[in-house]
């Protein structure tokens, strides 16, 4: 394996007026890793993803992708380099068919040579996420779980090296989450590096090899899932200082 990280973020900050949405965040993703990014609402998770993919430029800091400085790239450049993301709020092309949606990803960011090739590849990706039977329906006609999978198929069609999944499981019921978990495992098995941004602890804890915790724009903790959830700082961020204190006493007393 190559020791150089596929994605490296160094001292990344972004201020909106007086609010530091992301404050001096540094981390690295290694090839083939699944890393979870968690944090309470408003912690800056989505802003961080926006900074990495060039949707908003950072106030300071840098982003390195495959050893190359890509700090001020545009989103379409990120996509062509192999940095794909899904949106927290799904973003399909509503009037196009499901197949065309995925073909667009294959054509513009993936390796498809033409429309026909793109559609052939799109069919494979739709079969992979379990949407093949809906290929010719308009994207707007899909129910929410279907749209989430469409979003995933579209990102996969872009042949990413790194996939940033921004709350792909939000709004799904537990059965659907289990299916999504299985899907993410199979994506990781293809060797794609995944950063999961997620509220559902079940997803993060079962899938991630490593977890990063963001709170008020700062990276307050990182490590393997089991130790991160025990970290008093993390408990405090989620449940408040009183609860963290109580937990500390409980652990001390055995």
């Amino acid at each position, binding site marked *: 394996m190559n020791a150089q990280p596929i994605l490296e973020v160094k001292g990344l900050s972004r201020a909106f007026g007086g609010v530091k949405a992301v404050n001096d965040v540094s981390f690295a993703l290694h090839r083939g890793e699944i890393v979870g990014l968690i944090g309470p609402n408003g912690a800056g998770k989505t802003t961080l993803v926006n900074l990495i993919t060039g949707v908003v430029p950072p106030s300071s800091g840098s982003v390195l992708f495959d050893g190359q400085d890509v700090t001020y790239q545009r989103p379409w450049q990120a996509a062509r380099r192999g940095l794909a*993301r899904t949106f927290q709020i799904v973003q399909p092309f*509503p*009037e196009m068919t499901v197949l065309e949606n995925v073909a*667009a990803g294959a054509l513009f960011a993936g390796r498809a040579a033409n429309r026909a090739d793109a559609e052939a590849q799109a069919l494979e990706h739709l079969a992979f996420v379990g949407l093949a039977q809906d290929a010719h329906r308009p994207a707007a006609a899909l129910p929410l779980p279907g749209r989430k999978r469409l979003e995933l198929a579209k990102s996969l069609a872009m042949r990413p090296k790194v996939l940033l999944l921004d709350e792909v499981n939000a709004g799904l019921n537990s059965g659907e989450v289990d299916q999504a978990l299985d899907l993410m495992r199979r994506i990781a098995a293809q060797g794609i590096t995944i950063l999961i941004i997620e509220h559902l602890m079940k997803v993060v804890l079962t899938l991630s090899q490593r977890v990063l915790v963001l709170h008020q724009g700062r990276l307050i903790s990182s490590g393997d899932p089991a130790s991160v959830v025990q970290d008093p700082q993390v408990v405090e961020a989620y449940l408040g200082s009183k609860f963290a204190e109580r937990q500390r006493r409980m652990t001390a007393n055995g």
Partner: protein
Amino acid sequence: MRSSAFFILSMLVLAAAPFIADNYVVRLCTFLCMYAALALSWNFIGGYAGYPSFATAGFFGLGAYAGALTQNLGFWLPLPWLFATVVVALFAAGLGFAILRMKGHYFAIGSISIVEILRLLASSWAQLTGGGDGLNVRILPGGPDYAGRVFLYSMMAVMIAAFITMLCVDRSRLGFGLRCIKQNEDAADMIGIDVTSYKTAAFTLSAMYCGTIGAIYASWVAYIDPSDAFSILLTLKVPVMTLLGGPGTVYGPILGAWVFVLLEEMIWAKFLEYNRAILGAVIVLLIFALPGGLLRMQWRRKWPSSVFGLPGLNRLKESR
């Protein structure tokens, strides 16, 4: 395939017009070709990319003046028209980078201001353009019958060129990318579409044939002035034509332009005093009754959607 047969047939009828009909009909046919070419042009930016441009008259007028001025320098005829095409295409490409940052209503207002700015420029720069007195253009020698044919076939050639360009774009990566941009620009950016370049390409395509048409128009009528060349009415009519026929389709703009011009001609002939009001009411009714344009009416279902590139068609099927 019925629509392509209809298209070829109507081209033959237009081409035969000078041999079977009088000069009034030839003149009307020239207008049919002219407006169809303008509506096809608008379709690139308005129909495919979904940007409501009202800059048509700006490009048309700029082309008219660029063509007329070079023609008066004594250049052989198609040359001023080609020159006008290039000037307008470059102008639009440069302007696109600035104006395409705006969206929706802001873009619409920004684009209409181009028409006004160019009109003011043409009327103030009297040394070059003759200002409000207008500009006489050298008359094509050979008599009215000959000139009528030349201008009909020239307009027709531009219309066919615009149509072929549209067919190519419709099937290409560019057309697909523009449809993505129309539906969700942020998502289009995210899947690797260079939205700025794509939009600029669409804007330039929407402008260049307007420039050619403007230059041919100037040679045809042999006199232009700022309010005729940069007419607000023209800038509004052309999008209405495309919307009437079916925006984002390849045949829609032609159909819309022809229905509009023929309606206008009939209403103008019958109701001299109230023609504008009646035409306005008819258009409002048509647009309300047919939100997707004439081409998306129900009987259209029978035809394959890939030919028309109708994104809305499958949804219609779905809901039925």
